[in-house]
């Protein structure tokens, strides 16, 4: 078995600043060695420890979908020491990757179902991966209706604007993008994600809801889903947690008998209810 602590080297191919306050950037990475690229087989919902040697590591969800091609994409929020240092990198710089880690979204469970993808803020990144995966030509027939509800505080903070725009023009996926408050020339929806969810009112029949967002969004969105008839087993969430090793050994992300890095980060609401609320 290879050393699970050893990051594989990638080169930054491109960097796209997503938000107008520059706190979120998407990094497109390519492995230096083709064998590393071949072995890195991931599912939407998984993450990797993005490793900047000399600074540290940060667990970041995969924003790219395996259907996007060889380059990996991570949308990184500038939050602390490591992510700030990563933000200061340029195209051509090296970055280490350890992964893929975590359980990812349970694709087998999602097949033949209608998927209701609800994201808020920068927690949307792994949901983007799932949506892109689902609408890829070879995958689309495996899933039922696809509904995406995505909101940010204001237009300048929306991720993946161009892509979402393109998706809104498609007829095999329904995309509702909203902002809490409009600004500039925004002519799209204005409204909080929970309210928009209620309005769009996806049916719970044969559906799975995948929800990622800040605590306040979850607090108000989960009851809406419950009212719509979604049982706790039908709602999947992705947890954020402080991590270090990412492989279930160091203990930092331990909640109850689970390790968020290994048994998660994706948990159903039913599973979360079994865990102490220490996240």
């Amino acid at each position, binding site marked *: 078995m290879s050393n699970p602590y050893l990051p594989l080297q990638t080169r930054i191919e491109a960097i796209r600043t997503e938000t107008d306050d520059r706190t979120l950037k998407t990094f497109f990475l390519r492995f230096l060695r083709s064998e590393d690229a071949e072995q890195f087989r991931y599912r939407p919902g998984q993450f990797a420890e993005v490793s900047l040697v000399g600074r540290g590591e940060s667990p970041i969800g995969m924003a790219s979908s395996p259907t996007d091609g060889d380059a990996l994409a991570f949308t990184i929020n500038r939050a602390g020491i490591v992510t700030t240092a990563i933000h200061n990198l340029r195209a051509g710089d090296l970055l280490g990757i350890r992964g893929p880690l975590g359980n990812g979204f349970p694709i087998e469970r999602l097949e033949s179902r209608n998927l209701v993808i609800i994201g808020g803020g920068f927690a949307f990144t792994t949901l983007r991966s799932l949506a892109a995966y689902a609408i890829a030509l070879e995958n689309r027939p495996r899933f039922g209706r696809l509904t995406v509800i995505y909101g940010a505080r204001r237009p300048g903070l929306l991720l993946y604007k161009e892509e979402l725009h393109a998706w809104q023009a498609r007829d095999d996926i329904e995309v509702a993008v909203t902002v809490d408050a409009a600004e500039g020339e925004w002519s799209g929806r204005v409204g909080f994600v929970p309210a928009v969810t209620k309005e769009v009112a996806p049916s719970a029949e044969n559906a799975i809801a995948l929800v990622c967002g800040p605590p306040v969004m979850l607090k108000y969105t989960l009851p809406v889903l419950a009212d719509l008839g979604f049982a706790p087993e039908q709602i999947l969430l992705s947890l954020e947690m402080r991590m270090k090793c990412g*492989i279930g*050994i160091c*203990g930092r992300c331990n909640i*109850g008998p689970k390790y968020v890095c290994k048994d998660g980060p994706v948990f159903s609401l039913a599973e979360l209810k079994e865990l102490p609320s220490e996240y």
Partner: protein
Amino acid sequence: MRRVILAKQKLNDLIRQWVVERTVLAPVKQTTVDFEPVSAANEICSDYRNTRLPLKRLFFQPSEALLRFDFKAAPEQRVTEAPVEARPTVVFGIRPCDARSLVLLDRVFLGQDYRDPYYASRRDATAIVVLGCSRAAPTCFCTSVGGGPADRAGADLFLLDRGDIFVVDVITERGEALMAGLALPEADAETLDRADRAVADVAAAMTVIAGVEQLGPALKAAFDDPRWQEISERCLACAACSFLCPTCHCFDVQDEVLDQKGRRIRNWDSCMFATFTLHASGHNPRTETMQRVRQRVMHKFSYYPENFGVIACVGCGRCIRACPAGNDMRQWLRTLAEACGKESR
């Protein structure tokens, strides 16, 4: 498994034989008794209960480099694995509780999905010679957590001290290899019977905290019981207990750089520390000491057992001796057993 007699005056021959190709660690008395390299039997402390520090530090070091960085090297050589020194080693005289702790740590570090190469290479190179206990210390509670003074878990050789002789159980192949070249007589039934009964008496004399092994699920139900607050009232949230505990294994990873070179280091850490679960965003799920005390106890007595079927505590009592504020894990367990409605003696 063979059970043979080793005359104590022959122990030195054994040590001298081992030392040729192996490092031999044994309890040595300096200001305290701790494992140190020895080359002769007379260097070994013959009268001790347990060492101050647990042996986990041999396999899971307080601070060790995982990776090395060289920023001047070519990109593909920039990050390399730090070499692990894993000289063949014999640990002689480890107590059953500490040997058992290694088996518990193995489940974490040598998992099905991920194998920690640093821990693994040292563990693979080390033979474990356990010395059963002739006396329990006032703080021992191994028999309450699935262990005991004659517990053979983790032992390659298991010894019982019978005055002039040791009764030696040769348990594993590695144990056999340690005894190679020595023709030792098989122990007779009477000697074995006396030896086994003597150590069984040691176990029988220990106070057992009843119900600890069944506490796991009940503790989950008692998660919000006010008694957690009660037991953590005098905890100062340092890591004296965690660092001296043979089974605690949380660690931190830090990158340290000097000029153009650096290392990624793993350091002992503790869930008792206030910043253990602090996110970069400032959010911290466990700000109160009570929450962290609860996490530590639950991890050992509920979560780990749920995942692996055994309690992650060996009852060595070091936490009780180490705590500057008089906290006693046994008392905690009794209080919690009460909270869960289980009787405890």
